[in-house]
């Protein structure tokens, strides 16, 4: 345990910071942005599994996020279910739809898979906008209730009207997602995913059932997209069809790639920094998205592996530098 703490102290420090952060009394805006960043992080971690670790570029991730959000919205407003039942149901619904959509689309590879999932995403967007009886159409779905308070044995109850309570709720689900992803990625299952990413034919040859593994990865990814969507519905309290739009998928991919693809910290770093950068650009006025476009191009050219990749290579280089200094001439002569 002591050894474990010594190795992972940095992560515990970050966790502690995240836990005590509301005590500093941040403004409502900062709270809202952090809650949303947490929600994007969960969705991006899901995307990371199918895109980063399994190598299948799903462009339907935003659509599944939207399905999760609408499922929670519809179940809590029209069916009167409690949020605590609606949230897992929505997540499992997304996994189930992912199974049905994965059956035809995962038979295809590379760009074919990307575009066929994109086509599914666009269909979801059109349905969300036009099936007014179910989704409220282009007018959106208003008045989604807050989660029911959780009763505690001694201290009354936890209600979710304050931003701090919702912050802790999202943080809880983010940690849960991170834990699941950690367990999946560093298991035999995760290694199978990565084998498929690295060389699908070779993976098939050594006895990995690539189709079943890809389907599993797709379902787990969509489960977390749905979970994030449900939390989003809870945070905003109203939905518009644009939550299923492919622009959302593009944003999640930007968070993933700029944060660092196929790392566990990357999606979270991306989902926190990119929205804050976009927000900071508001000061520039109307040209902000023009500048964001340029930033995106420049950063992908100079940091192709994202912030995490850039940090890792910087870390390795400094470590190399110090090792060389310590070992001196002997090491240099060997190499």
């Amino acid at each position, binding site marked *: 345990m002591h050894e474990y703490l010594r190795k992972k102290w940095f992560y515990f420090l970050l966790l502690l910071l995240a836990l005590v952060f509301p005590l500093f009394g941040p403004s409502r805006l900062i709270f809202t942005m952090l809650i949303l960043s947490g929600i994007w992080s969960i969705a991006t971690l899901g995307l990371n599994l199918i*895109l980063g670790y399994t190598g299948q570029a799903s462009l339907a991730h935003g659509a599944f996020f939207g399905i999760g959000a609408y499922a929670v919205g519809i179940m809590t407003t029209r069916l009167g279910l409690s949020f605590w039942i609606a949230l897992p149901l929505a997540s499992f619904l997304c996994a189930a739809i992912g199974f049905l959509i994965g059956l035809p689309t995962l038979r295809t590879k590379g*760009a074919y898979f990307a575009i066929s999932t994109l*086509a599914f995403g666009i269909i979801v967007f*059109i349905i969300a906008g036009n099936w007014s009886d179910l989704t409220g159409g282009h007018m959106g779905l208003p008045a989604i209730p807050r989660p029911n308070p959780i009763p505690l044995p001694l201290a009354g109850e936890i209600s979710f009207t304050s931003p701090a309570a919702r912050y802790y709720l999202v943080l809880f689900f983010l940690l849960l997602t991170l834990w699941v992803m950690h367990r999946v990625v560093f298991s035999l299952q995760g290694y199978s995913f990565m084998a498929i990413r690295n060389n699908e034919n070779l993976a098939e040859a050594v006895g990995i059932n690539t189709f079943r593994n890809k389907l599993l990865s797709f379902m787990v990814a969509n489960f977390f997209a749905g979970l994030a969507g449900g939390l989003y519905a809870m945070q905003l309290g109203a939905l518009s069809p644009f939550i299923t739009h492919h622009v959302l998928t593009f944003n999640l991919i930007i968070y993933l790639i700029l944060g660092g693809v196929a790392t566990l910290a990357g999606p979270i770093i991306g989902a926190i920094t990119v929205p804050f950068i976009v927000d900071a650009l508001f000061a520039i006025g109307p040209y902000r998205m023009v500048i964001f476009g340029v930033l995106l191009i420049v950063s*992908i*050219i100079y940091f192709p592996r994202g912030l995490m990749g850039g940090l890792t290579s910087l870390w390795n280089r400094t470590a190399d530098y110090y090792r060389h200094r310590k070992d001196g001439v002997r090491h240099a002569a060997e190499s």
Partner: protein
Amino acid sequence: MELFFQQTINGIMLGSTYVLVALGVTMIYGIMRLPSFAHGHFYMLGAYITFFLITLYNFSYWPALILSMVVLFFIGGLVERIVFRPLREQSQISNFIAAIGILLFIEHMVTVIWGPHSHRIPNPYPEHIYLFGASVSQQRLIVILAAVVLIALLQLFIKKTVIGFTMEATAQDREGAALVGINVNRVSSLTFSIACALAAAAASLVAPIFVIVPGMGSLLVMKAMVIFILGGLGSIPGAIIGGYILGLIEALGGGYISSEYKDVFAFGALILILAIKPTGIFGKGAA
């Protein structure tokens, strides 16, 4: 029967623009192996340039259209040079992010400079003629004819000129082409330029029929992607046939079943066809 002819001609007209845009996407993928998600925004830019040449500088329709193609030709080459060439060795997903950067840049630049509201290019040929009992505006027929001419010219260019041969060689084997002395970088630039010029032509042709708005390209590029997948990656005949088929599916589905869900047919058809044949109608092999 009238409705059928009306919708068929509409479908062929829509299909003509889809073919022109999808040909660009297909050529870019064939040469550079990158799905050009920003292509719809080059299309939009082409329409705006034609619009401003006509309204601000009093050009007549055809010179404006050709000048717009020329401008987009150079913009396309420039974009390939400064954005996609440095990303040559990177993965497709990096190129995808760069394409999103480009489309954000173009869309918001146009919005800031010319406003988010829609414009309309004055229709140069507003008269109607009657074909099989269906009334068709002349501009629609011109779109169909001009698209056929452009597609034929492109085919002649690729099949009969030396530059066309170099493009085909690069599409087949980039390293092999470089080994026999083809400047593959120049071929990439040229391909991107031609693709953008085609998009500008398509946009300028249909702009008098529809309105132009900064977001007009974003759904179109998705359809171009669908066509390019339906036809099989990098297959030019596939893109031509796929484009017309998609236009017809949309027009007939929209006319007979439901106009709100007309796009669902196009995208649903893609998923269905890929479920049956995972490499597209004309596809040769896996990506």
